[in-house]
């Protein structure tokens, strides 16, 4: 232990830095410089019941201090994940969180069941907030009732801790958080990408094959902090915060806003060494800025919701 261990609800992470879903594949693509066991936990790419091909290209566009993606949850399906990747991750002692996607509630439930039977998965993250698929995905995450129902159904089929990943593309994120808390979620993860788009003025058409895409990276950091703050004020569940995190002060800022652990995604693309730099700087920054303690929720006024 590096002394950086932190508790994310039921999960004991060796450090608070989590590789978020979709930017770290199934854990091994950055291996030469970022082994998966570097992180407190690795959340693998969204996984569905059967293989999904994803959206037609182009799937990416850079934007000011951010990027749009419309991958469309391409993934080889839960069986391939369990067969080809999970054993390798388990071997390396990685804390694996599986990111679950589906087109219907039953699909979410079926994937969750399959994953729960497997050995070596620490928790499920229900992705009810992906803006890049036509059915399911964000549709659930923007409705209080659907979010609640989905979490309740998954709760019945798994004893694994459930993280529920929320969308920032809603009028009242606190209401969604309360609903999933009531339905039995263990941790709230946020934020997923912000719905956006880009236009190609030469082609006079949307750039992305899917028209819309999800905005991520430093550009959305202020939105992520705000959502974390709001959810921290709305529920008592622990929060996995993410959205534009780039350096070790960001990690502490996200914690002060209410996150117990902090995810990193797009920043890898800007600097693949960012996670190493963060983990190197974090002990010193924590000593300097927060007397060596994890400052979870410290920016909230005393006597707030918690």
């Amino acid at each position, binding site marked *: 232990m590096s002394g950086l261990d932190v508790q994310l609800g039921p999960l004991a992470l060796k450090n608070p830095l989590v590789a978020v879903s*979709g*930017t*770290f*594949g*199934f*854990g*091994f*693509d*950055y*291996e*030469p*410089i970022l082994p998966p066991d570097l992180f407190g936990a690795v959340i693998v*790419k969204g996984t569905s019941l059967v293989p999904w*091909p*994803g959206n*037609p*290209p*182009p*799937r*990416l*566009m*850079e934007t*000011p*201090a*951010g*990027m749009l*993606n419309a*991958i469309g949850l*391409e993934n*080889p399906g839960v069986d391939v994940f369990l067969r*080809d*990747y999970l054993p*390798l991750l388990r071997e390396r002692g990685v804390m694996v969180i599986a990111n679950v996607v589906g087109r219907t509630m039953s699909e979410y439930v079926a994937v969750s069941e399959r994953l729960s039977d497997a050995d070596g998965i620490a928790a499920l993250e229900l992705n009810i907030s992906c803006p890049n698929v036509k059915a399911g995905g964000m549709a659930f995450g923007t409705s209080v009732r659907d979010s609640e129902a989905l979490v309740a159904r998954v709760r019945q089929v798994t004893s694994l801790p459930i993280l529920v990943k929320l969308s920032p593309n809603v009028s009242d994120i606190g209401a969604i958080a309360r609903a999933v808390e009531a339905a039995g979620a263990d941790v709230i993860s946020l934020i997923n990408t912000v719905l956006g788009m880009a236009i190609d003025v030469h082609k006079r058409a949307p750039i992305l094959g899917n028209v819309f895409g999800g905005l991520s*990276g*430093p550009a959305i950091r202020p939105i992520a902090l705000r959502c974390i703050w709001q959810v921290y004020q709305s529920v008592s569940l622990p929060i996995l915060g993410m959205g534009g995190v*780039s350096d070790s002060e960001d990690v502490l800022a996200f914690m002060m806003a209410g996150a117990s652990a902090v995810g990193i995604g*797009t920043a*890898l*693309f*800007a*600097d*693949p*060494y960012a996670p190493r730099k963060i983990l190197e700087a974090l002990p010193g920054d924590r000593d300097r800025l927060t007397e060596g303690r994890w400052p979870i929720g410290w920016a909230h006024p005393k006597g707030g919701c918690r």
Partner: protein
Amino acid sequence: MLAGSLQFDQYEGVLLRNTPDGDSFRLDIEVKSDAFWPKAGQFLQVKINPNALDPLLHRPLSVSDFDAKAGILTLRIRPVGRGTRHLVTRNPGSRIGFFGPLGEGFPLEQAGSSPWIIAGGIGAAPMVFLARALAERGIRVRTLVGAARAADLVAVEALKRFSQDVVIWTEDASAGSQGVVTAGLAQIDEMQDERPSVLYACGPVGMLKTLEATVLDTIPVFASLEAHMACGVGACLGCAVGVRTPGGAPNYARVCREGPVFPLREVVLS
């Protein structure tokens, strides 16, 4: 998407020379590291501005040449947007950060007896390193290069150094023959001994589509493709290119990982 065997790392080179070359620039960069060992057809993810969050992403650029003895990496860059424009204005002495090498290179083992290189515009960039690699294996290569006009031709001298012969095409006939670089391939069916064993191609999509339409039935073509990239290492699935499937169901490969070089026959150009 299986666990990778790629070996890449982050490097910082020092720019030695920045030389205009056709409509592009040749950047010679000293890389002091024994670990950096690229193959022909691989690319690098180059950082534009290490101190700003914009532009955020790296830019994929081919290894245009690598002189392993001297430790000198050559990039050839056509300034088309913000990132490339920034790079080609760097002064000697400045540091250029990148990570790589990435992707699968050109399959040299499939060269056969008389491989041809065909390059349109800045597509000539990776072909210098390819021609060098073939030459070092004693394989003689014929190289076809094309551009709109003579002044836009890239890397001709370097290609001449490593190729048996270099055939030049320009659209305005200001150098070589008049026409697009694929013009000469129309008669390929009538060619006898001269016929290429394989075509290594890099250039605009239009050029690749012409190859698809003209020679694909007769000659294997290995084409280096382009796609917008975020990670460059296979993690984000952003650089998808359609691949042919038996039933025509959509399926994708990653340009950064399974590519950037693909058998042209297997991909769906868009």
